[in-house]
Each structure stands twice: as structure tokens, then as C-alpha cells.
């Protein structure tokens, strides 16, 4: 602890980007030039605030910090309750970093640029709100609100089938959310409080416990997304504008895993164990089957989207594999969940960079089809070097952050069952094949098509952005402890509650 923060830092970090977003919307047409500077100021201020939170954060404690708790709707027992712990903080940092990246690299030539940036700032505030909310109804409020900016982003600036993709995305997630709402209200009435830490299943019949667990699981599984409720994701990714894909892959997908750690594990201890095998099997299907699907993709964005689903399989596997340990071992369990959380952050960085790269190529060439490319390395060597680096990180090359999460989860899985570990380790081969297959066809070889001849190398700002992400990926890959020590105490607390 450097200096105790005396002001409501969390409220400010949630509402600052939202206020900036609203201000952006209201800028009159003749001051159009101010749009980008204001957006950048807003996002940088938010990042600085997030860093301030980090500097003031006590990583040795698993307790909630920077608590702001007021009664909001007294009649319904709903509170305005913001606080962070070691799992929220890395995800908040990830959100702020991603938003800056999106805003700096945004394509200025698109129509209604003002609204485009404003929606990202709104989304940033809302997503930070999801990670900071400790009252379940407040959590639900931010959770649902996060759909709307993205719905508009995909629908207004998306590709050819954007309307279909936007509505599919919304309805899929909305379906999961309303089930979660029922579960939240039921638990809240049962517990006499909507604060997440107070929710309890004591006194509910076993059948209802399982039902409520399923409601949460469905809501989060759709968000992760797990097989077989993943079908919205490739559509949303392929159709979304570059920035939309980046925030979707980097942060939105993490909401599912975050929700499981916040709700399913601590609240439904014994019930989680009943369903653990079910979730593990789904995760393994995601890892193996979806990897094969990725192998057959013709569109780069859709390939990375499927690869995201496969990687998120490790998050769900890591979270639920702890119930299969025989005998139970708290240290190995901590290893598994640390791996899962680490994977969330690392995948956020890597997939953001990959989508950014594809977006860059698409802007120059107007195509995302793998077949239209070849020999990008000759036209844009620096870009190609970065893209290959992130592709290797996606393959989980040791030394990059992609390796750490998957490795921890696989190691821990051996404790549960050799077969689970074996199947999940297949990702090392499959991930390498689809990623490198894409790299070979897109980056290397001779320049064969007109599209590629239009490719230029990236500008200085883009080099800085890619370089920054690359440094983070390497840093986390070489010294993962920076991140792990942040959430280790919380993970231990969750395991204690879960078992």
C-alpha cells in the first residue's frame, strides 16, 4: 500500500469513461476534430486511474478492497456495492488497456466516427462496472448493459451479415441472462441480501439447487462460450468491426469465466462437484473438436474466433477440474484455477493483437479470406514479424504468456485423470496446426494476389501498439508471477469456499 485512496476511486473509474462517452456524443459537428483527442484523453485517464488502483491494491489479501457500499433501492434490498479483489483487478487493467488500443488504432475514415468511439468508452465503463460490482443486481445491470454498445457496434459498422450477427449475439446472451436473473432473485430472496458474498443456497431443496446452478452455468457458458452454445461467436466476430472483435475477444469472453469464479464455485459448493464432469467434458470437446473446426476455416477472423473458443475451453476446464482431484489437494487446485485466470488475461492480450492484425490487413485489402493472401512478409516485414510472434503466442510457445495458462491447467489435470490431461494436451498439436497453417498461407510465400500488393507496412503508432502488447505477452510469459501473485490469495479463498 502506497497511500490510502480517500476518494471513491471505483465509482470514478466506472463513470469516467461513461461520462466521456456521453460528452463525445454531444460534440457538435463543427468541432469534429476534437473527437479523437477527447476519446484518447478519456481512455488514458481511465488507464491512469486503473494503475493508481493497482498501486494501492494490497495483493497479499484475498479480501475485497476499495469498498464503496451504499443502500441504493432500500425497498428491494439492492445496494450500490463496488469493490475489487485480485481477480477483478487484472481484468479491469485488461479492459482499460484494450480500450486504449482500440481507440488509438481506430479507422478514422468510417462513418459516424464520433459514435463509434463513444460506444467504446461507454462499453469500457460498463465492463469495469461488471468486474467491480459486488451486489448481484448491480452486476446484472452492468452485465446486461454491456450487450447494448456491442449490439450497436456490430450492427452499425459490421460486415455484410451484420444485422443477423448482431441480433443473434444479443438474443443468445439475453437468453442466458434472464435465466441468471431468475437465479439471482431466487438466491437473493433466500439470503435476504443481494450482495454476492451473502448469497447462499442454504435452505433450498437439492433439486432447486441444481436448477439454479444450471441457470448460472447456462448464462456463463453462453458468454465463455462453451460448446455447444458457441455458435453466436464466429458470426459476431466475423461481422464485427475490428474494434468490436478486439473488445469481444479480449474482455467480453472473460465475463463467463469471471462469473463462474464469482457465483458458481463459491455459492454452489457441493452442486458444482456434481456437475464438474459435465463441464469438463464440454471443455474437452471445445478444445479438441473446435480446434478441428478452426482448421477448416477459410476466413481469418473466423479461424481466430474458433481458436478463442478452444482456448476458453482451458478456462472452464481449469475451473472445474479441481472437483475431480482424488484425493483433493488444495495446492494443485490453486494451480488449476490460477492457470484458468492467467489464461483469461493472456488470451485477452493475444487475441486482441491477432484481431488487430487481421483488421489491419482487411482495411488495406478489403478481404479476410486466407486464400486471398500470401507473401505478406515481403510487403510488410515488421507487421509480419509481429503477427508471427502473436501467432506463436497463440500456439502457446514457452516464453510467451499463452504457454503459462495452458501448461498450469494441463499439469493440474494430471492430478484428476490422465485421460483428461492427455486430451487437453492435444491442443499443443492442434493449436499449432491451425495457427501455423494460417501463418504459412498468409504471411509467407511469394506475393500472388492483387490484394497483397496493396499491403503496406504499419506506421509508427501501430508499431508502438504491437510492440507494447508483445512486451506484455513476453513479460507475462517469462515472469508469470507478477500476475499470479495478484490473484493467488483470492483463488485460495474461492477454493476453500468451493470444496
Amino acid at each position, binding site marked *: 500500500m502506497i497511500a490510502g485512496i480517500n476518494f471513491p476511486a471505483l465509482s470514478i473509474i466506472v463513470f469516467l469513461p461513461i461520462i466521456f462517452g456521453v460528452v463525445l456524443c454531444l460534440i457538435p459537428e463543427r468541432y469534429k476534430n476534437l473527437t479523437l483527442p477527447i476519446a484518447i484523453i478519456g481512455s488514458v485517464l481511465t488507464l491512469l486511474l486503473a494503475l493508481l488502483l493497482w498501486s494501492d491494491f494490497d495483493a497479499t489479501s484475498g479480501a475485497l478492497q476499495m469498498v464503496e457500499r451504499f443502500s441504493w433501492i432500500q425497498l428491494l434490498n439492492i445496494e450500490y456495492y463496488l469493490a475489487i479483489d485480485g481477480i477483478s483487478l487484472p481484468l479491469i487493467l485488461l479492459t482499460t488497456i484494450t480500450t486504449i488500443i482500440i481507440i488509438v488504432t481506430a479507422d478514422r475514415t468510417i462513418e459516424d466516427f464520433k459514435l463509434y468511439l463513444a460506444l467504446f468508452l461507454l462499453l469500457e465503463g460498463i465492463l469495469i462496472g461488471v468486474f467491480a460490482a459486488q451486489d448481484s443486481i448491480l452486476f446484472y445491470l452492468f452485465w446486461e448493459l454491456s450487450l447494448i454498445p456491442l449490439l450497436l457496434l456490430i450492427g452499425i459498422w459490421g460486415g455484410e451479415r451484420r*444485422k443477423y450477427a448482431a441480433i443473434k449475439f*444479443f438474443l443468445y446472451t439475453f437468453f442466458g441472462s434472464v435465466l441468471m436473473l431468475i437465479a439471482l432473485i431466487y438466491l437473493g*430472496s433466500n439470503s435476504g441480501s443481494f450482495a454476492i458474498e451473502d448469497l447462499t443456497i442454504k435452505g433450498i431443496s437439492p433439486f432447486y439447487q441444481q436448477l439454479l446452478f444450471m441457470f448460472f452455468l447456462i448464462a456463463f457458458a453462453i458468454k465463455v462460450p462453451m460448446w455447444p452454445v458457441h455458435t453466436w461467436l464466429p458470426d459476431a466476430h466475423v461481422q464485427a468491426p475490428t474494434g468490436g472483435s478486439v473488445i469481444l475477444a479480449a474482455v467480453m469472453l472473460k465475463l463467463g469465466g469471471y462469473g463462474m469464479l464469482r457465483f458458481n464455485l463459491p455459492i454452489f459448493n457441493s452442486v458444482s462437484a456434481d456437475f464438474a464432469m459435465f463441464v469438463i467434458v464440454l471443455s474437452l470437446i471445445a478444445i479438441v473438436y473446435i480446434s478441428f473446426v478452426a482448421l477448416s476455416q477459410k476466413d481469418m477472423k473466423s479461424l481466430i474466433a474458433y481458436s478463442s473458443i478452444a482456448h476458453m475451453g482451458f478456462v472452464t476446464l481449469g475451473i472445474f477440474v479441481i472437483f475431480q482431484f482424488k484425493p483433493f489437494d488444495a495446492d494443485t487446485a490453486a494451480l488449476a484455477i490460477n492457470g484458468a485466470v492467467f489464461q483469461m488475461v493472456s488470451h485477452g492480450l493475444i487475441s486482441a493483437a491477432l484481431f488487430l492484425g487481421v483488421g489491419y490487413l482487411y482495411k488495406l485489402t478489403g478481404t479476410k479470406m486466407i486464400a486471398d493472401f500470401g507473401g505478406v512478409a515481403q510487403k510488410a516485414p515488421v507487421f509480419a514479424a509481429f503477427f508471427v510472434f502473436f501467432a506463436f503466442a497463440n500456439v502457446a510457445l514457452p516464453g510467451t504468456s499463452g504457454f503459462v495458462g495452458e501448461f498450469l491447467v494441463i499439469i493440474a489435470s494430471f492430478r484428476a485423470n490422465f485421460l483428461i490431461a492427455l486430451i487437453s494436451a492435444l491442443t499443443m498439436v492442434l493449436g499449432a496446426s491451425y495457427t501455423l497453417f494460417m501463418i504459412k498461407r498468409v504471411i509467407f510465400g511469394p506475393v500472388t494476389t492483387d490484394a497483397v500488393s496493396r499491403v503496406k507496412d504499419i506506421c509508427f503508432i501501430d508499431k508502438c501498439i504491437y510492440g507494447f502488447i508483445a512486451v506484455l505477452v513476453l513479460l507475462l510469459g517469462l515472469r508469470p508471477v507478477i500476475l499470479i501473485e495478484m490473484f493467488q490469495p483470492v483463488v485460495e479463498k474461492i477454493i476453500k469456499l468451493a470444496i
Partner: protein
Amino acid sequence: MERELPAFTILAPEIFLLASAVVILIADLFLKGKQKIISYWMSVAAILATIIITVIAQIGCDDVILSGTYKADIFGVVLKVTILFIVAGVFIYSRTYLQVRELLKGEYFILAIMGTLGMMILVSAHSLITIYLGIELLSLSMYALVVYCREKNSSIESGIKYFIMGAVASGILLFGMSLIYGVAGSLNIFEIREALMTTKAIPLSIPFGLTLMVVGVAFKFGAVPFHMWVPDVYHGSATAVGLYVGTAPKIAAFALAMRLLVEGFDAIHTQWADIFIVLAILSSIVGNLVAITQHNIKRMLGYSAVAHIGFILLGFVTGVTDVTNGYLSSMFYVIVYSIMAAGAFGIVIFLSDKGYESGEIDDFKGLHKRNPWCAFIMLLIMLSMAGIPGTAGFYAKFLIIQSVLDAEMLWLALLFVIFAVVGAFYYLRIVKCMYFDNAYKEKLPDSRFEFRILLGVNGLVILGFGIFPEGMISLCRMALL
């Protein structure tokens, strides 16, 4: 005889509204052409004055006056003030629409005011006879309003449909009332309640009459299977009339159910609640599914109203439990719904201002580019109708689901939220048209100042109730104590 004088001070708002209707009726005879706008201003002023008089005369009252036929209480004040505010909003929204079509005449306002008077009587009715009088005053005004635009064939068709079905429903309601009167020996709601409490063996004619009355109530709500008139009236009548029919009368129907069924037949709650479950489920299923296939925005709003009524009826099913109060949920829901519906119709009326009848959902295409402010308010209303948190519609659904879960009916809550997702689809379709599709019409001209202010306030109220619903909820709670 001492009782008589205070009785009439309590009745001041109703008397004032009736008197202003008469004054406007006479004044309108002397106004020609453009001067008719004076009737409009007089009507708005009369409604706003009635709000003030209602608050002064009836707040803090808890009296049953006029030999037990009229009850003045907080419940009445809250609902009357809401109804009056909404009717004033309806007038302001309708002004340009009526002017362009040369329909801005005294008749529209007088009929609407008489209907409002009917609603006010209904809200305060405490005897079967006053209830029936209120219903008839409201219904007859609405029958005439629906055919107000009499050049249009669809308007006449829907008016006749509405009239025939409405007359049958009123007859059924009256038949039910007569059976109840036959057994209970009184028209007074309180005495009927006492009679039911004391009777050990309830004779068969009570549930029989009750069922017939529930049919009448369901018709006024527009619940499935008594919903046939709703889409036709919304679609066929002039938009200004649809705006009137689709908003305030829902609150009156809620008051009807409260006064008649809840206050009178609380003792046999389960008997009518079971019918309400069926009505609610059917309304939600039919309303949501059929709304998907509509091309006309007014028809879609009609079916969406049916779906919302399903939610409102759920609150009556659960009734009062230890923790939650289903009637409170319904009351909050119906108020919020009327405000949302007023806003939605306000936008439809705005789009059809220039002598052109908007109605197709396609007319919303590219609204974001043509008029961003309007599109934003409509976005807010659609999200609120879909029940997205941050808007009033969320807490409306929240309260209902909470009371359903509290009554241990998880399956019912599940069914309703799943159909809420189905409902979200057609609300999203409007959002899609406004934001994702390209405009094929020119930019919209700005509307009148008062219209824009009202639209802004309407959106703000939806947002405000969505973020700070406590004030409204506690008001509803006070009203029901």
C-alpha cells in the same frame, strides 16, 4: 346531512373535469377554423388543473362517501394523477397530427375528457354500480373515438368490432354482477366482501358470477382470449386515438381488477387467480409470438400490449405473500407500461406528422440518421419494453418475477422470462431498422417545441425509474397499504 358537503369537496376533481368538458363543448361551438386550437389549450389546462385539484382534494383521504359508492384514498390519487398526466401527454403528442389532418376539433378532446372522467370514476368506484358506470362512460367515449377518423374504412371496421365485442363484454360483466348481487344482497364492494367472509358454504352462483366478471375484466385488459379487439383498434383507429386507447385505459383496467376482484373477492382469491394464470400464460405466448410476424408498428404494439398484460396479470396471481406484494408489482408495471406505450406511440405519431400515415415498421429505417434524438428515445423505450436493466421496464419485470418466485412458482417465472426473450426479438427489430438499415426517406423536420420537451421528459422518466425506482415503488406501496 352534515356528511353531504364534505362529500362534494372530495368529489371536486370529477366535478371540475365534467364542468370543463361542458365548457369546452360550448366554447367549441363558437370557434372556427384555426381558432379550434383554443379547445386544445383549454383541454390541456383542464387536465392539468384537475391534477392539482385531485392532489388538494383527495390526498390524505380515506373515506367512503355517497352511501358507500365512492372511495377516496391514496390508491385513487396515485392512479388518477398518473392517468391525468398521461392524458395530458396524449393531447400534446396528438396536436400536430390532428392539425395536419384537420381533425383538431372539440369532439376529440371532449370524448377523451369524458373517457378520462370514466377512468377517474372507475378508479374510485366502491360499488358494482359505480364500477359499471365508470366502465360504460370510458367505453362509450372510446367507441366514438375509434371511429373519429370516419373517412377511413379500417377505422369504422375496427370501431364496429370494438363496439360489438365491448357491448357483449359489458353484458357479461353485468350478468356476473347481477348474480353476485343476487347472492350477496348488496352492490357495495365492502358488504360483498363481508358476506363472502362470513358465509361457510359458498353457493355455486358466486364462482359462476365471478367467472363472468373475470371475463369482463380480461376484456378490458385485452388479455387472451379476449384480445381480438386490441390489434384491430390500435391499427385501425387514427394514431392519436390509438395513443389514447393504448395507454391510460390500461391503468383503469388495473384499477377495475383491484377494486372489483381484490377488494371484493379476496376471500376466494384462489378461485379467480387460477383463471388469471391461464389468461396470463396465454397472453404472454400469443402476444409475443404473434407480434413477431407483424409488419405494422401499431399492430405490433397492440400484440406487445397483450404480452405485457400477461405480466401484469401475474401480479394478481401471486397476491400478497409474506415478503412481496404481487399487486404492488402489477401496479408499478401498469404505470411503467403506460408511460412506455405513450412514448412509443408518440414516436409513431411524430413519424406520421406530415399528412402521411406512418404505420409500417419499415418507416423506422435509418431513423438514427434522420433524427438521432428521436431514434435514441425509441431505443430507450424498446429496451425498456424488452426489460433491459437501467430502464423502468427492468424493475417492472423484476418485481413481478420476484413475487412469482416468492409464491414458489419457478416454472411460471421461467416460462415468462423465456417469452420475454422472444419479445426482445421484435423490439430489437425496431432497433435494427433505426440503427442498422439505410434511410430511404429524407431528414425529418423538427417537431414542435412542446412535443420535443415531452418526448425528452418521457425518455427521462423511463431512464429515471430504471435507475432510481424507489420513489415510485414506495408510492405504490403507500397506495396499497
